[in-house]
Every structure is written in structure tokens, then in C-alpha cells.
């Protein structure tokens, strides 16, 4: 399987930067501790804020830190390669490969996500569980649903990042769009503050945006806030956004392919 091979080599590529991985785990954990104390202060004042108790909130905090790299909230991943290759013109080679352009880079990104999940996902979760009292699912099926949900979260994130990267076809330099998309992702994913804390009607709005698929849906599955059919509707919500975003990417790429002359050609 070609795409599996692409994913595996991407996994290996990211696994070479051990020092960066350790440094990242350290930083995620420091932020986990800081945010934990701010959540403890909030839930001490209002013990049922957002329908969470303090254990839910702390679990949310550490899972969110653990998922930053996996779902690439701050960008990165293979879509950064795409933007760079558009700028240099190397993208012409990618477009002429006899495989799906999106499939190639999505496979690479899933390989990267798998590596980040196993290292920068697992380590902060363990550290958080040692320092604070966290909630763990009691049913193996919940872990499975959580993993599927994280996978779909990566696909949604890939769709948004790919849309940003293809903007380089027109802007040449994606860094402005990149910074802007990081703002949206950081806030609307619930990394800055859990989406359930938003006052209505903003709460309903942010829970319907694609960024809710990054963290809020998987974490709610982990916490048991979503159970039974709510798990399935959560997964369906993520799958729907994945489909919409990937179709947009495909349309945009077809448009770019036709309209844009490769630089330096």
C-alpha cells in the first residue's frame, strides 16, 4: 500500500528529532500545570461551570496539552511542506505524480500525527495523571471511540491547514494566513479555554465550527460527557467537516492547477 508506506516514512522522519520531542513534552507539561491551577481557581468558584466538575476540567486541560501537536493546532505537518513547495515551484512535481495529491500529503500527515500521539500525546497525559487527579474511561470501547475521534480531528485539521497552504498559490508566502489560522484554531479548538465555558449563544456557535472537532469532541468522548448515541453524532460531526473540507481542498487545487503558472518556469 503506497499510502501506508508514505505514512510510515513520515512517522520515521518525525521520530528523528528526539531532543525537540523531549523539549516539547517538557513545555506542554509546564503549561499543563499552569492551566490546571487556573482551572482549579475557576471551578472552586463555580463547581459545575460548563457542566464539568473540577476532575473533568483538569482532565480536559491535560488532554488538550497532549493533543496540541497531534492535531497540529499551531500548524506544522506536511501542509507546511506543501506551502514551501508552492513557493519554490517544487509543487509542480507533486501535481504530476500518478497518485492523489491530497492522499499523498494526508497519509504523510497521519503518519506524523501517529508519532506525535505516541510521544507528545502519551507523555503529558501520564505526567498530568501523576501530578493531578484525572478521569480515565473505564470502558475499552471509549478508548477506541476516542482514538477514532482523534483521527478524524487530525483529518479536519489537515483540511483547514491544506486550505491555508494552498493560499500560497496566490500569496506566495503563507505565513500571514498561517498566523491567522493559528489564532482561529487556538481559540475555537478550545485550547485557550474549554468551549463548554462559553456563554450562550456563542457556545452553540463554537461547538458547530470545524475547530470543535480538534479537541472538544474527542475529549468529551473520553470524559463520558458524550455517551451512547452522542458519541456517534460527535463522530458524524467530525466526519462531515472532514468531507466538506477535503472537497474544498480538492476544488481549490483544481482551480490553482488551471490558473496558476508555476514560478520560475
Amino acid at each position: 500500500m503506497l499510502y501506508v508506506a508514505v505514512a510510515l516514512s513520515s512517522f520515521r522522519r518525525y521520530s528523528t528529532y528526539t531532543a525537540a520531542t523531549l523539549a516539547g513534552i517538557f513545555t506542554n507539561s509546564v503549561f499543563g500545570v499552569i492551566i490546571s491551577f487556573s482551572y482549579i481557581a475557576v471551578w472552586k468558584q463555580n463547581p459545575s461551570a460548563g457542566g464539568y466538575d473540577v476532575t473533568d476540567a483538569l482532565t480536559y486541560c491535560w488532554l488538550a496539552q497532549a493533543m496540541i501537536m497531534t492535531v497540529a493546532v499551531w500548524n506544522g505537518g506536511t501542509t507546511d511542506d506543501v506551502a514551501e513547495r508552492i513557493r519554490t515551484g517544487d509543487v509542480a512535481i507533486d501535481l504530476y505524480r500518478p497518485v492523489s495529491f491530497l492522499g499523498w500529503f494526508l497519509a504523510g500527515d497521519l503518519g506524523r500525527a501517529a508519532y506525535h500521539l505516541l510521544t507528545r500525546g502519551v507523555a503529558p497525559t501520564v505526567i498530568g495523571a501523576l501530578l493531578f487527579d484525572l478521569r480515565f474511561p473505564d470502558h475499552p470501547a471509549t478508548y477506541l471511540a476516542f482514538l477514532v475521534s482523534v483521527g478524524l480531528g487530525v483529518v479536519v485539521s489537515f483540511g483547514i491547514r491544506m486550505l491555508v497552504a494552498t493560499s500560497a498559490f496566490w500569496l506566495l508566502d503563507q505565513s500571514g494566513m498561517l498566523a491567522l489560522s493559528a489564532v482561529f484554531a487556538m481559540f475555537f479548538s478550545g485550547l485557550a479555554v474549554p468551549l463548554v465555558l462559553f456563554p450562550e449563544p456563542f457556545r452553540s456557535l463554537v461547538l458547530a465550527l470545524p475547530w470543535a472537532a480538534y479537541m472538544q469532541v474527542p475529549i468529551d468522548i473520553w470524559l463520558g460527557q458524550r455517551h451512547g448515541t452522542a458519541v456517534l453524532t460527535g463522530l458524524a460531526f467530525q466526519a462531515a467537516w472532514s468531507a466538506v473540507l477535503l472537497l474544498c481542498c480538492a476544488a481549490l487545487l483544481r482551480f490553482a492547477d488551471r490558473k496558476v503558472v508555476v514560478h520560475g518556469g
Partner: protein
Amino acid sequence: MADRSGTRSGDDLRAFTILAAMWIRVSWTYRTSFLVMTAASLVITGIDFVAILVMFSNVDQLGGFGLGQIAFLYGATALCLGIGDLVVGNVERLGRHVRLGTFDAMMVRPVGVFAQVCANEFALRRLGRIAQGTAVLLWSLTVADIAWDPARVAMLGSMVACGTAIFVGLFVLGAAFQFVSSDASEVANAFTYGGNTMTQYPLTIYPTEVVKALTFLVPVAFVNWYPALFILDFPDPFGLPGWLRFAAPVAAVVVCSLAALAWRAGVRRYRSTGS
């Protein structure tokens, strides 16, 4: 190799200004991107504060402090980090310069290597964070109910100067660590941006040991907490000595001296990547 970190500071300042001006012209070439990024920098830092507002839609105080007082703490630390980040924030790219070999190129130029690293890819868009921090700080001054007198005005000025110096020192210390491990630039983030995030909240939300560590180990508590206790007229909730609220200049001098020593030691033991 001769130590080039010790050239005259007047020359370095001039070189820094020229290089920074050059990079501002460079960023202006990709105009849309530059404007969007400046706007994004303003918004991205503002989002921290919106997150605090969201929290306050569920509670009316955190750790015994109201929104106005937290806005003061937030604005102060954001402003200090913003200025520090604008001036020396690019030292965090040292590891990349070492990896790519561009650091070697800097060492053979007749300009202080520290000024070159800081000015390299100087990013004027970081004014966004400064503007946002200033806005929140000014807003907090109107709502936090402060009994102004000359001492408090002086403390406000000293707070911004010392707080900036502390963050500058932390940025440089983090960069000096990259002489040891060039891939580990993220460790520094835990102290700079982590210190910033920690001091956005009143330290009363942390356990006493953490507050002592933030006072005596990584002294970010002096960026805004101790000056704020004086300006807002709060008794120290941890019962630490009262003179600490005037000790920010000491903390700033200590951090910056350590940073200068670490940087010089790093430059001196630097042996290139060997490839």
C-alpha cells in the same frame, strides 16, 4: 576563537538598528502577509484575554482578584513580554542558525554576534502584542480603582522597565541553552511564554511553593505581581516580606547578568557543527 560577543555596545546598537531596518523593508515585500500577520499578532495575544473574559462569564473572581485587577496583571506582563520579544525574541532561533551554519557566518563579521542574532529577521509585526498589552493595561487602570500618588506612578514605570528586562534575560538564557542542545528551543518557551501565562493570573491561585519558586528561582513574580501588590495596595497573601515589592530591579539585574554570562560562555565554547 576570539570572543566577538564583547565588541563595544555602541557599535552593536548601531548594527542592530541598521539590520532591523533592513528586515523591516524585507517584510514589507510580502505586503499582504505582513499586514495580516501584524493583525494576527494583535488578535492572537488578545485571545488570551478573551479566554479570561470567558472564564469570568462563569465566575466573578479568581483567587480573590476581580476582572479589573487581573486585567492589570495581564496587561503588565503582556506589555513586558511584548517589548522583550520585539527586541531580543529572535535569539530563540539560535539553534537553527547553528544547524544551518549561518551562526558561523555571523561570527566572522565585524559586528557583535548577539546584535546580529537578535536583529536577524527582525519582526515589526510583534508591535501587535505590545499594542494589545498596552490597551488592556490602560483599560485596567481606569477600572481597577487605584489611589494614584507619585510613588505609584514611579512604580508603574519601573514595573515595565524591570519586567521587560526580566523577560529579555529569560529569552537570552533560553537561547544560551541552545549552545548545549540546538534542537531544544522549546524548553525556553516554558520559561518565557510560560512565565507570561503564569503571571497573567494572580499568584494566589498557585500553591505557596510555586510562588516561592517564581520569586527566588525563576523570578517572573517580579514582572508584575510584586509591583501590582504595591500599586493596587494588596497585602501579600503569602506573608512574604514587604520589601519584595520593591525588589524588581534587583531581580532584573540578576537575571540579565546571568544571561550575559551564559551567552558569553556559550559563544566561547561554541565549536561549530563540525560538518
